[in-house]
């Protein structure tokens, strides 16, 4: 009741907001964004196929087979297969998803289920082929993105937080506003908010480069060329663990990213990443 009453009252100084299209994303950002999205999708699905070949993670140079910090496995109980996931000594029954799941109606012992691996059947050799192909595409694409971001001033101009955005009060304000699903409007929507900047910089400059470096550290040939990789990550098995953790963080980022895209204006966001134009509402200024 109250709400309709409020809505019925005309707004004071009814300045009608006018929609204007602003140039949001450069061509380089748009192209590299979509190549990146495709690459990361294939890398994730084929990466889970590769993980399934030995679904256990360790710290250090070598595997301590009896003591992984994370592992999936299965055992038979009462004539049926039970999937079990172990994380740091904790055991979880994950039947149907992790450890044991169905493939064409047949129960199988496998880390991740068929519907999220590429290919769906157990096929390490082909999973590796896809992983390395898209790894090259991802690295070349990422290099183009970084080079154009530096040269065009995109990082400095659009992604580096400004001094006012870094004030703790402002950051807290943004967190509260995001939690209420209220996003910057009008002139404030012309630039990325500080949480966006932090998330994009964290993914582009920390998580994705970490994926490349930890991936390289798993190569015996590259370890010979760059032994400092092993020092940096604490050994090949640590690198494999960090690779897995960062992949999970990227998935978490993508889930939040997609939610924000939907909640803050699905079509406007998608258009801006295809045509480059983003609609913002500006107050009509009285003559």
């Amino acid at each position, binding site marked *: 009741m109250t709400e309709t009453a409020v809505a019925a009252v005309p707004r004071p100084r009814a300045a009608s907001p006018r929609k204007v299209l602003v140039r949001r994303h450069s061509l380089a950002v748009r192209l590299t964004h979509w190549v990146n999205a495709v690459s990361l999708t294939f890398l994730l699905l084929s990466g889970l196929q*590769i*993980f399934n*070949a*030995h679904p*256990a993670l*360790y710290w250090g*140079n*070598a*595997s*301590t*087979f*009896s003591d992984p910090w994370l592992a999936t496995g299965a055992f038979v109980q009462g004539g049926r297969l039970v999937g079990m996931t172990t994380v740091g000594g904790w055991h979880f029954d994950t039947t149907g998803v992790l450890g044991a799941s*169905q493939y*064409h*109606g047949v129960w199988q012992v496998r880390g991740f289920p*068929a*519907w999220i691996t*590429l*290919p*769906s*059947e157990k*096929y*390490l*050799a*082909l999973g*590796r*082929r*896809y992983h*390395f*192909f898209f*790894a*090259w595409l991802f690295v070349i694409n990422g290099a183009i993105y970084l080079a154009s971001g530096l040269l065009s001033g995109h990082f400095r101009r659009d992604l580096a937080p400004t001094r006012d955005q870094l004030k703790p009060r402002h950051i807290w304000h943004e967190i509260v506003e995001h939690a209420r699903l209220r996003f910057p409007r009008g002139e404030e929507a012309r630039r990325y908010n500080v949480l966006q900047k932090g998330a994009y910089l964290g993914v582009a400059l920390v998580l994705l480069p970490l994926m490349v470096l930890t991936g*390289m550290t*798993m*190569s*015996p*040939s*590259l*370890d*010979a*060329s*760059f*032994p400092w990789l*092993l020092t940096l990550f604490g050994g*090949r*098995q640590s690198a*494999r663990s960090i690779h897995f953790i960062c992949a999970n963080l990227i998935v978490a980022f993508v889930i939040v990213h997609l939610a924000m895209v939907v909640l803050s204006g699905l079509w406007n966001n998608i258009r801006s990443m295809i045509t480059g134009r983003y609609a913002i509402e500006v107050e009509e200024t009285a003559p």
Partner: protein
Amino acid sequence: MTALPSSRRGWLKAAGASLLGVVLAGCDRIAENPKLVGVIDAAEGLNRRAQRLLSSRRTLAPEFSRASISRDFRANGTTNPADADYRALAEGGFADWRLVVDGLVDHPLSLTLDQVRALPARTQVTRHDCVEGWSAIAEWKGARMTALLAAAGLKPTARYIVLHCADTFDAGAPEGQRKYYESLDLVDALHPQTLLAYEMNGETLAIPHGAPLRLRAEKHLGYKQAKYVMRIEAVDSLDHIGAGKGGFWPDRGYERYAGI
């Protein structure tokens, strides 16, 4: 409101599962399309070239302290060959075993284990990286491949070193493709850490790990480290060996270079 009758719920689940099955089968058909896989394979050439570019012929794989040796080095692949000729050799303590070196060499050889042990040797503590993802560290002592090949004298036309093994790995495969084998480019065969190992962690190499002789090529994955080596052949082409891809697993879709 009552729950869905179990039969209807069961039907929905079954319908969902079969729909998923159809979608996955479709995805797999695309993913395994030979033309597409042919395109995807381009990455392997890039991997090999990039790794060659970044690694000189003297670049050594990392070596570790004896304290880092794994207590639980997993034996993978064949762990006890069932082949009758191998069983007979093993029962005789490999006294009748001979390492044959032939192909494009000036002096074909047939060496006893003691003769292999008398070749210039190297000891190294290195990490073994299985293509599945796990690693294990061991100390290996073995004859340097360079010394063996120098003794045999490679002909200028030799381009690859093929290692023929005793173990039948795929009894159902066509004739000539059943036993394990691997191959090395010359640059990898002549690498200072490439050994024909007969000792592991200070003890005579055990059967699960490839007795009496196995390859160590430390810049490559585990499947390159051929076990139960019987014959070393220098060739100018891999086309006529196995299915022509230069190794038992390479014939089955894995990369021959095996550097990552």
